[in-house]
């Protein structure tokens, strides 16, 4: 049997977080959706199916066959990459069937004869064909659609992930002047991690897991559930409230609540981030803050692509695409969506939607210095963190730049006429 972890046609709903990464690369709890799914898979050759412009990048990052049609000529387990699989239970193979969550496929076992019958070269049509023609059953599961679904599920995922590791205790350098409040068995400090004096780790409402080489500087308070990723730093005086995940190599200061920082993200200074997902290589300038609750306590509406979309959630923060930067003092509105590689400078309460690659300066949308300049900056930033610049990633970024140009240019032109 072969196994395909795939993106379905709903990947755009995860924009801007998903613009240059497959949806299963997004993080929730301790790690990515991909890592959680893989932990539950049976034996079998694994492969990926992603949108075409990410094919080479995914192949490079995951070292697995990508969009390989030969998979569809075998008995096949298909697993939806949007599945937040936190229970760790194995996906048991068995009779041919499609398991659905709502109207979407969660996973499916398909015989090679059936796959051959319905495969016409279009993966989305293939999914629809097996969904409509193969015996199916319903299962309640977290199949994430929107960025705020990740944030909403993060605290529970953190607790489940902690329990699944089975780890607890202090292996690393934990100052005698640091304190643990709550149950000590709900804390794990890795061997090469360091916790400085006058840090309080409060595990009374959830576990706290500190990865290798992570460092928590003095006068910080870390409230569980919380995951601090490899080589991430919690800056002095940080107020880390419940439900946060910090991926590898993040630097986090100020106040943060119920948020996911993907990896290599910087929020070095004071300022509030709440109910947000912050992409890779994002830099939030000093005193950048986001609202995550409206003054009328109504559920938050977001504006992806400039069009209103009800989230059904009371608390919704900001969703910021990879490589975007904010200046000092930026005030992000409740439910802000900022695309990738934007430059956002302070100018009162910001708009709720920023198309990718746009500059926001003196409360106006502008083109900025152009793509080449932005790529140069990204290369510099990545080199500083010893991350390799992949030509496949550049290809994906250029693709997204072209794809997003019409809405960006249209907004800039409309803005001129104000």
């Amino acid at each position, binding site marked *: 049997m072969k196994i395909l972890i795939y993106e379905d046609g709903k990947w755009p709903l995860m924009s801007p977080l998903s613009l240059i990464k497959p949806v299963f690369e997004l993080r929730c709890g301790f790690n990515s959706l991909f890592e959680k799914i893989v932990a539950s898979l049976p034996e079998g050759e694994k492969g990926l199916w992603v949108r075409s412009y990410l094919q080479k990048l995914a192949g490079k990052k995951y070292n697995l066959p990508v969009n390989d049609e030969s998979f569809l000529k075998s008995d096949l387990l298909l697993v939806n990459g949007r599945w937040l699989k936190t229970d760790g239970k194995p996906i048991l193979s068995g009779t041919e069937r499609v398991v659905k969550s709502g109207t979407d496929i969660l996973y499916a076992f398909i015989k090679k004869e059936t796959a051959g019958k319905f495969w016409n070269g279009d993966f989305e049509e293939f999914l629809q064909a097996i969904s409509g023609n193969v015996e199916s059953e319903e299962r309640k599961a977290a199949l994430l659609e929107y960025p705020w679904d990740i944030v909403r599920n993060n605290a529970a995922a953190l607790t489940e992930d902690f329990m699944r590791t089975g780890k607890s205790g202090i292996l690393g350098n934990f100052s005698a002047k640091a304190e643990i409040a709550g149950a000590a068995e709900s804390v794990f400090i890795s061997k090469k991690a360091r916790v400085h004096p006058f840090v309080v780790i409060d595990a009374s409402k959830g576990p706290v897991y500190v990865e290798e080489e992570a460092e928590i500087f003095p006068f910080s308070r870390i409230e569980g559930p919380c995951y601090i990723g490899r080589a991430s730093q919690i800056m002095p005086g940080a107020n880390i409230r419940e439900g946060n995940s910090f991926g590898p190599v993040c630097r986090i200061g100020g106040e943060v609540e119920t948020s996911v920082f993907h990896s290599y993200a910087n929020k070095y200074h004071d300022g509030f981030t709440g109910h947000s997902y912050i992409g890779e290589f994002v830099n939030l300038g000093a005193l950048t803050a986001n609202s995550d609750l409206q003054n009328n306590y109504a559920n938050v509406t977001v504006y992806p692509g400039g069009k209103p979309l009800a989230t059904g959630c009371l608390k919704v923060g900001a969703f910021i695409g990879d490589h975007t930067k904010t200046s000092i003092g930026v005030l992000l509105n409740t439910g802000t969506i900022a695309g990738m590689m934007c430059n956002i400078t302070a100018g009162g309460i910001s708009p709720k939607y920023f198309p990718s690659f746009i500059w926001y300066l003196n409360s*106006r949308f*502008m*083109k*900025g*210095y152009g793509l080449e300049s932005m790529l140069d900056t990204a290369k510099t930033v990545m080199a500083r963190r010893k991350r390799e610049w992949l030509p496949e990633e550049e290809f994906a970024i250029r693709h997204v730049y072209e794809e997003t140009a019409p809405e960006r240019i249209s907004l800039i032109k409309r803005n001129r006429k104000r």
Partner: protein
Amino acid sequence: MERAKLVEQVKKVVAEILCVDTEEIREESRFVEDMGAQSIQSLELVAAFEAEFDIEMEEDAALKVKTVGTAVDFIQKHVEGKD
């Protein structure tokens, strides 16, 4: 568009964005060295020229323009191209 008229319009935009007197602006005036334009103001200048003359300026080329005179030449080409 007549060049002299274009020069006056460009000077007006430059004066407004960089907060300098129109009389102090010459065609050979350099945005950065002579008028103290900061990097972010160069973006504002490009946006203001686009709005004033209803043109599209390609980012990389526009940001290579260093003086008022070359800005006038650059804009004149775009304005004539539009006509």
